[in-house]
């Protein structure tokens, strides 16, 4: 019986605290994440709160299950439907399993968008991609050109496997924008199979076989770390630079050792900010939410929608010595 009392008291306390915070705002937007307690999503929430502050009269409900399961997210969606929130912006654990419950949400007048990890087209109105293949390809080449004196010199690509879909598309996009960077040549492409040791060995081999290479572009978070390590171990720091796509927490050391000057990846804060802005504009009817339309997203500009109602937020965010430590704490 004693524990029942304690339980009742705890429940009362928890609920009391919660009521105090659940003040009615004009527009209530739920930011649903894959699971709570993940740095990347906590950062997205930071961006969402920033958007709410900027807009005024917006309450962001940051929520998600404790484990990354579709069933957990469905429970969360059910409780959000019950609360009659105005919009749900979700990073989905499952493309398909959430569709019936999100459809129910939409049928009850809730605006639904997905961001980061998408939901099938019938379960949401808009999907916000952090970036697009073309933008990623361009950014990789741009970062390579930026470290070369006058933007001229030889570069090589360290990819994942020869069959990796994402990497192959990005490499193709890189080659497409190459004419915009005269003087920059891609002289070799090697494959590290997204294995740290193979990527390392391929980089060492590359440095030996192509001494003219001054930049290594690794559009893979495994490859970029291995390449930077190889450059450092071969005492080539200052001669050869590594760039590409990587995680700030893994790359901070290499940025400080100067093996890498800059690298790129999505910025979760911008992502949360944009998702909130889009949701708000949908609720307020300020968005042109149809295939080929566009949606304003505050300081992040305008989201252009393609025929699947997908949109790319922006260029990948560039991390260098000035900001890598701040983001290394997040993801």
């Amino acid at each position: 019986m004693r524990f029942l009392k304690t339980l009742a008291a705890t429940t009362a306390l928890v609920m009391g605290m919660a009521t105090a915070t659940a003040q009615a705002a004009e527009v209530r937007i739920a930011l649903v994440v894959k699971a709570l307690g993940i740095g990347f999503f906590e950062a997205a929430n930071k961006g969402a709160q920033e958007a709410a502050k900027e807009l005024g009269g917006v309450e962001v409900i940051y929520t998600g299950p404790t484990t990354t399961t579709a069933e957990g997210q469905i429970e969360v969606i059910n409780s959000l439907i019950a609360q009659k929130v105005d919009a749900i912006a979700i990073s989905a654990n499952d493309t398909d399993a959430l569709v019936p419950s999100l459809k129910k949400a939409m049928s009850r007048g809730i605006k639904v968008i997905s961001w980061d990890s998408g939901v099938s087209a019938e379960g949401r109105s808009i999907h916000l991609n952090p970036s697009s293949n073309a933008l990623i390809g361009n950014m990789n080449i741009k970062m390579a050109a930026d470290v070369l004196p006058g933007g001229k010199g030889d570069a090589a690509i360290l990819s994942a496997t020869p069959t990796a879909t994402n990497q192959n598309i990005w490499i193709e996009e890189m080659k497409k924008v190459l004419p915009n960077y005269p003087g920059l040549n891609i002289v070799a492409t090697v494959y590290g199979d997204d294995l740290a040791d193979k990527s390392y060995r391929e980089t060492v081999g590359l440095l030996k076989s192509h001494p003219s290479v001054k930049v290594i572009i690794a559009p893979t978070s495994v490859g970029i770390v291995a390449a930077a390590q190889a450059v450092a171990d071969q005492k080539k720091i200052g001669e050869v630079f590594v760039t590409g796509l990587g995680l700030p927490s893994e790359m901070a050391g290499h940025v400080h050792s100067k093996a890498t000057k800059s690298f790129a990846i999505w910025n979760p804060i911008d992502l949360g900010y944009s998702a909130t802005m889009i949701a708000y504009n949908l609720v307020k009817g300020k968005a042109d939410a149809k295939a080929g339309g566009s949606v304003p997203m505050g300081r992040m500009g305008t989201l252009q929608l393609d025929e699947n109602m997908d949109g790319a937020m922006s260029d990948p965010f560039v991390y260098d010595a000035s900001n890598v430590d701040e983001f290394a704490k997040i993801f």
Partner: protein
Amino acid sequence: MTDRASDNHIPDRLDVGWKPRMLRWETLLFAVAVVIFVFNANASPYFLDPWNLSDATFNFTEKATIALAMALLIVAAEIDLSVASIIAVASVAMGAAAQAGVGTWGLVVIGMATGALAGAFNGFLVTRFGLPSIVVTIGTMSLFRGIAYVVLGDGVYKGYPADFAFFGQEYVFWVISFEFVFFLVMAVVFGIILHRTVFGRWIFAIGNNPVGARFSGIRVERVKFILFVVSGLMAGVAAVMLTSRIGSTRPTIALGMELEVVTMVVLGGVNILGGSGSIPGVVIAAFVMGLVTFGLGLLNIPGIVMSIVIGVMLISVIALPILWKKIRAP
């Protein structure tokens, strides 16, 4: 109802010589449910909406349906930890059948049959070779989930027939969903089986004293085998409802659900060591867990708080009787 069963052995629940002798676990649990209900109704303006309460039932009916069968198994001092994996393998079987053009009722039969078959496999290993069920079902938990992964990989089965959505998404009457009605009917059926039939008495006898049960002419192995098949069958039914509700199948479906099912059963006052427990207790426990989850969800309290609340309740229900015995012991 369980008192009759506990007459012939040392009772291991609180209602021995403690102050509220007449207060049984089910009554306490019911009081908790009422308290939570009242709290929720006061804390959130959205709680008392019939549609919302109906939505809330979807969160726990599948688990609770399995918990009914699990309760019988645990009373018989066995356990089935593979139920969530059985859901996965049954759902994959239905998905493959749906791809091959099987109709709605065919899918239901396939789902239930796969479940029953998986349960029979568990029962066979446990009763034929005398293996501990916790070991066997931890093994089959990986095995069944593994089969689902082998078949589906990182793929997905969608495109179930439109009327298949009935089992997990439709309403029988006003806000009362098919899932919920099914659960209530099953609760009555399982309640009668456990508390009003000879078969039910056998289950208690086996849980209390398997050797004694055997000497008194109960076919222990056969009863246990049937219980495993029933557990698999109910997991198959849950697979039908869950697959219908989410309209797709991935090998990760229902991941980790077995622990929530066992939690429900234990919270319902079923002795984890076997021999005692009741179906009404399990049903009330299902409601308590459902109400707590939904209430906290409405207030946007992170799910981890819910885990803490349930954890505390669970430890209390297991620890308090043991502590009490120790204190009372000379």
